[in-house]
């Protein structure tokens, strides 16, 4: 299945994309997507604990199962205000 991935701020810079498509096995989770996206990028891998995920605009746990066409987002610690 295919999902759309958004990466922001430090993760956007480390992973080299702000938006991309990603092919995943059926019933893959947000953590599966994270591991696929950060494999080979140790500086990004280290940020797992501080990264929140969103699925279709809703903050979601890493164990959340994804569906075809989902939009997922990788959210580093926020700094608004």
């Amino acid at each position: 299945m295919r999902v759309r991935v958004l990466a922001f701020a430090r993760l956007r810079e480390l992973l080299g994309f702000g938006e991309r498509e990603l092919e995943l096995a059926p019933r893959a989770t947000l953590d599966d997507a994270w591991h696929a996206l950060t494999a080979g990028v140790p500086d990004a891998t280290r940020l797992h604990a501080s990264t929140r995920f969103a699925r279709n605009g809703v903050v979601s746990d890493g164990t959340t199962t994804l569906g075809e066409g989902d939009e997922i987002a990788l959210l580093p610690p926020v700094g608004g205000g």
Partner: protein
Amino acid sequence: MIAVSPDPIDLQALIAAVGDPAHGAICTFLGTTRMTSPGDDRAVRALDYEAYAAMVIADFEAIAAEARERFGPLAIAIVHRIGRVALGEASVGVAVGAPHRVAAFDACEFAIDTLKARTPIWKREEYADGGTAWIANTPGGST
């Protein structure tokens, strides 16, 4: 009024957006860009804000709804800038109109504190020496 925009924040527009003859108070907050970060003495030249805009708009709406649940009937405007913001300019503006001042003060503080804790917006400082860094808000902090 809920918005994410590269344009300078117009405080009078925020105030006008929450005006209501049933209200006796309007409380406003502007967050302005500062020339140093806590614990870092490098001079900041400018700031850049990045946002997951669709989620920010939904979250600002949720913050407004949560504020009304906590503090009663209110009108709330929240605007955050994205892109480059020069030193001393407002990066975020909140205005709350309420029947009485206590609810206006409390809801205004709640809105900015909640935004800083969770809304998907990121800040990159650019220093006078050309370096840059992404700056995260301190959990529960006052910065």
